[in-house]
């Protein structure tokens, strides 16, 4: 891979997380447990779609093959997506959605905070703009994890089950590989493996406040970097990509 190809790949990793999580949150429309939360979920989803647009638009420019944000979002198949396995997991109940969100928000917060110092000016600007949004997302999701963990017996059980169910998707987020290494060496990317300690501190304090057990690290799954996804992603994409695929000549 040449430098541009590496940067393109790196930007897809960042942007795809936002695009897929935004899509998952859109699925909540009309189904939230309370009207205020209907607004909050839409708001977070909207921020994520906005971040996806900036990152994929930039990815398309770096690639230089004439693909724009929509060509990247709507005309790639499962194997070409680079979002974490965590992100594509189905919404489940409100506890699972909030657990997934909190795990990612804490990660994305640390990652984007580091990326504000990126030598790539476009990327550092996107990171700085997004960081304000992510600060709110993180507060929102961790508050819900705490509220549900330390709420009723029922909500506690549901939140614990959600954390347990998602725990094995976490290690993948902190993996380094040739692309990540090259981006760190170029001063563009950040070393995510170093973020793990701070992420652990954040999560531990949230779990403690929520009276939840931190699960043992007994299992993990990986593969999104090579396009090896769970079966859920295909259905998400089929729904999301339907119109542009069915009418490829149309402008909307």
């Amino acid at each position, binding site marked *: 891979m040449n430098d541009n190809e590496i940067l393109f790949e790196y930007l897809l990793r960042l942007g795809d997380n936002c695009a897929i999580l935004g899509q998952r949150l*859109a699925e909540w429309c*009309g189904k939230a447990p309370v009207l205020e939360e209907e607004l909050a979920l839409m708001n977070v989803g909207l921020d994520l779609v906005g971040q996806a*647009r900036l990152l994929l638009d930039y990815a398309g420019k770096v690639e230089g093959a004439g693909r724009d944000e929509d060509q990247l979002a709507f005309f790639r198949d499962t194997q070409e997506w680079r979002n974490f396995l965590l992100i594509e997991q189905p919404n489940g109940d409100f506890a699972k959605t909030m657990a997934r969100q909190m795990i990612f928000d804490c990660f994305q917060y640390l990652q984007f905070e580091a990326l504000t110092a990126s030598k790539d000016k476009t990327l550092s600007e996107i990171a700085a703009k997004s960081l304000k949004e992510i600060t709110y997302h993180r507060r929102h999701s961790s508050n819900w994890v705490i509220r549900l963990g330390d709420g009723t017996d029922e909500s506690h059980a549901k939140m614990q089950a959600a954390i347990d169910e998602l725990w094995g998707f976490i290690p993948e987020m902190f993996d380094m590989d040739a692309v990540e290494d090259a981006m760190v060496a170029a001063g563009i990317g950040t070393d995510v493996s170093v973020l793990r300690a701070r992420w652990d501190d954040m999560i531990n304090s949230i779990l403690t406040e929520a009276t939840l057990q931190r699960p043992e690290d007994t299992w993990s799954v990986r593969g999104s970097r090579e396009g090896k996804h769970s079966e859920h992603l295909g259905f998400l994409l089929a729904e999301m990509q339907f119109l542009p695929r069915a009418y490829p000549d149309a402008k909307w």
Partner: protein
Amino acid sequence: MDEVDMELEKAFQSKIDAELKIEPKDWMPDAYRKTLVRQMSQHAHSEVVGMLPEGNWLTRAPSLKRKAILMAKIQDEGGHGLYLYSAAETLGVSRDEMYEQLHSGKAKYSSIFNYPTLNWADIGAIGWLVDGAAITNQIALCRCSYGPYARAMVKVCKEESFHQRQGYEIMMNMSNGTKEQKEMAQDAINRWWWPALMMFGPHDKNSDHTSQSMTWKIKRTSNDELRQRFVDATVPQADYLGLTVPDDKLAWNEETQSYDWGEIDWDEFRNVVAGNGLCNRERLQTRRDAHDGGKWVRDAALAYAEKQKKRMADKAA
């Protein structure tokens, strides 16, 4: 009615006649309060149920930009629901009671949301026609005699006109697009035109609520007048899109300087209001499921807040 009440009612009506606003703490006749609760809660429910037909296309929006715009719009509509529930609460009814009435079928919401969204142009048509009709109604409501309602409407109207422009922009892209897109756009106006006209309610001569509401200045303009205003404003917009309004009686009248047009199918109107439209049952069930399914979350939030309060108190002691 005893003498005291008569005096109060006289003072109340003269306040309204003098174009003064009625505020929550002011005395008001029971029937005025009831009418407002009915109308405002119905309006709030419409905002919330109205999220569903649009939500139906949110995960299938054809570009990231369109998805973002639609998410923002749906968020706005939820926000309108919140202002309106809060405004209605000033009349002494709780949000839970209003939900209860919605879920039991006792309270209504705008029938327009019982129609299905079948293609992407429907999202354009809803913004253009449904938000357009809503604005026509709501601009009149900005001068409503009940202060909290009037103020909520001023806020809401600004956002609605934004929605209408965005809806029209979708229609513009579609009607200038490919052959299939044009067909979708025409199909959308075919299905949404008449239901949009029904949003203004029955003819004035058949409307139970109109005359009393006019005296109380809850309503300032009659159903038929608002409907005509909407037709006159919207037909030229359809012409500009190159779409055909599905009404063969539609014609410009030089004399009245407005459009003559056909007749609403009032049987269909009554049928949908009675709960037998294509989506009535499903819409209501979705709302019930969200509410019932979310109970454990609301209970947990409440339990947590109680614990926090107790912890604070223990700390202070």
